[in-house]
């Protein structure tokens, strides 16, 4: 999907710069002032969800034909990065809207897209992505939620765990087993459905209390005989596993963008502190041990950023190595975010440990980027497999 706006060089285009700066202004003026309170209260920021909708930020990932702004992957990631600099919870609103819509965007019919995308693009509807179960995290193929064909419907029974936005979504992209035959190929057992909620049999049974990303509701969802029409199935029966893997190829950069944003936010706070704080008669940034840390934090963040941008361009161009690029950028960015935020707390010393400064929140927020959307260990497996191929 190469378009004319794709940079043949290593610089952002003027359009991408404008867009990044537009989102940055919104993030600095409207999102940042709310970040601490969102973390403290643990409440989903409806006001910021509405702000993102009103500013057309939620329209970025969707095709113009269905009411979106037709942004490329890099454009969407630039927006996620700028939002996450101010507040990781808010950045996730855009990231999940993209993630959960990807199966529909990749394999949905025009009719399905026309049904659901306009309201996703306008932000009137939120969508969640339900693969993970209590006993199936990294091992996606091991999920047990069943979807049984019954006339013109499927009946879905099971439960999903750790579903971001599960309690605030209007649509849930659900992956379920449609072929329970033990001799069936492991990668052909699953199918993908869009469930419109509320609906009979669907219940939010739990909201997790998390270390970080505390304003983002992470839910357990129960499906007790939930009926969905066949028209709500995305792709053919058995396509679910492949569809999930293709989704991750495009969604992992979104999480990498969140991680880069978190890292940059923490670096900004640490650098400003090092300029202002004076000990032993000079600013602490002039002590080499501190300067060295800050330099490493900057280099770490920038390299994660550049890998992310490159990965986005490659994936958008249709590279056959999409899995490698997406796993690699998420791997590097997640580790970068954890390292940079931890060091940011260190630079601030005692002040880094109290909630008067945002870096302790950023450190707590950063950790999830090493866990979700595929653990760092899974990302490594993907990269290694791309490098080594299969054992003949």
């Amino acid at each position, binding site marked *: 999907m190469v378009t004319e706006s794709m940079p043949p060089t290593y610089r952002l285009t003027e*359009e991408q710069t404008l867009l990044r700066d*537009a989102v940055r202004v919104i993030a600095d003026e409207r999102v940042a002032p709310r970040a601490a309170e969102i973390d403290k209260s643990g409440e989903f920021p409806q006001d910021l969800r509405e702000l993102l909708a009103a500013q*057309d930020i939620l329209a970025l990932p969707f095709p113009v034909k269905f009411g979106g702004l037709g942004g490329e992957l890099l454009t969407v990631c630039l927006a996620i990065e700028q939002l996450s600099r101010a507040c990781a919870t808010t950045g996730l609103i855009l990231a999940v809207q993209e993630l959960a819509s990807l199966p529909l965007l990749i394999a949905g019919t025009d009719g399905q897209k026309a049904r659901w995308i306009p309201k996703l693009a306008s932000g009137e509807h939120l969508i969640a992505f339900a693969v993970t179960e209590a006993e199936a995290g990294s091992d996606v193929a091991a999920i047990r939620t069943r979807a049984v064909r019954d006339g013109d419907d499927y009946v879905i029974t099971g439960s999903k765990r750790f579903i971001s936005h599960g309690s605030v979504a209007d649509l849930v992209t659900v992956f379920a087993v449609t072929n329970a035959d033990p001799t069936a190929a492991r990668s052909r057992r699953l199918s993908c459905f869009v469930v419109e909620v509320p609906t009979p049999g669907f219940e939010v049974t739990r909201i997790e209390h998390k270390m970080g990303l505390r304003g983002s509701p992470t839910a357990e969802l129960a499906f007790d005989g939930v009926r969905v029409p066949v028209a709500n199935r995305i792709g053919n029966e058995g396509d679910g596993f492949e569809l999930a893997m293709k989704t991750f190829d495009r969604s992992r950069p979104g999480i990498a963008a969140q991680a880069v944003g978190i890292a940059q936010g923490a670096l900004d706070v640490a650098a400003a502190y090092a300029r202002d704080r004076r000990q032993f008669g000079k600013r602490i940034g002039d002590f080499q041990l501190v300067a060295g840390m800050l330099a490493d934090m900057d280099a770490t963040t920038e390299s994660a950023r550049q890998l992310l941008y490159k990965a986005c361009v490659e994936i958008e161009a249709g590279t056959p190595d999409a899995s490698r690029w997406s796993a690699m950028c998420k791997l590097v960015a997640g580790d970068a975010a954890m390292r940079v935020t931890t060091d940011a707390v260190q630079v601030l010393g005692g002040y880094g440990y109290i909630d008067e400064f945002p870096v302790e929140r950023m450190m707590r927020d950063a950790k999830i980027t090493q866990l979700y959307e595929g653990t760092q260990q899974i990302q490594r497996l993907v990269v290694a497999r791309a490098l080594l191929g299969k054992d003949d």
Partner: protein
Amino acid sequence: MRIVVLVKPVPDPASGSERLGPDGRLDRAVAPNVVNGNDEFALEAALKLVEAAGEGEITLLSMAPANAPETLRKALAMGATRAVHVTDAALAGSCAVSTAAVLARALRDLEFDFVLAGIDASDGVGGIVPAAIAAHLGLPYLSYAQRIEPDMTTRTIRVRRTSPTGYDLLEAPLPAVIGCTQALGEPRYPSLKGIMAARGKEIVTRSLADLGLDPATHGANAATTALLDSTMPPSRGATEIVRGTPDEGAARIVDFLVERRII
């Protein structure tokens, strides 16, 4: 309503990277270019007029080096309809007189009801081009506008011109050229929709040959002004910043002036 807005890409004053090249002139290769500040205010005024009228088109007109389209994109993203970009290697180093002649010639090929231009540009700060263009075209020139009110039915335009005592009220028949000040109102930040829509907007390029102009009468060799010398301003001495309530501030300022026997 057809409005032309004159737009000049200038080095970004906010970037702090303005510096002089070896020829003593502003090094335009260094700083990132942005749309001249006053021109953004002019464009904002045009956008508001079109919105209020419920119809209209805004054409940007710019005489600038070949890389101008990048800079014009923000102005298109703000909502301008299209852009006309006059560019030619022979135009490098043109003086203000030449610039005005070229832009006036380009305007003869456009249909417009009025032309808006920032009162001056942040790089040269000459402030004569809009007036010179009006003179070339034999059009009324209404300067230092703080409010603009066109009347398309009577084909007239009213402008409040900033004056030392407040403002003067001017009226002229259309078409006319209006010099715009920042009092017209803060330029909008382009919306995401506007930024993405700018992709599809037309930028027409015109060379000196397209305009039927002789390169020998433009550019550095034909310039009517010569740069004799340029220096950086001396760095500021110690400054005292007065903080506090207005009363506290006023008291401190009075003390300051008394200390220096100014009052």
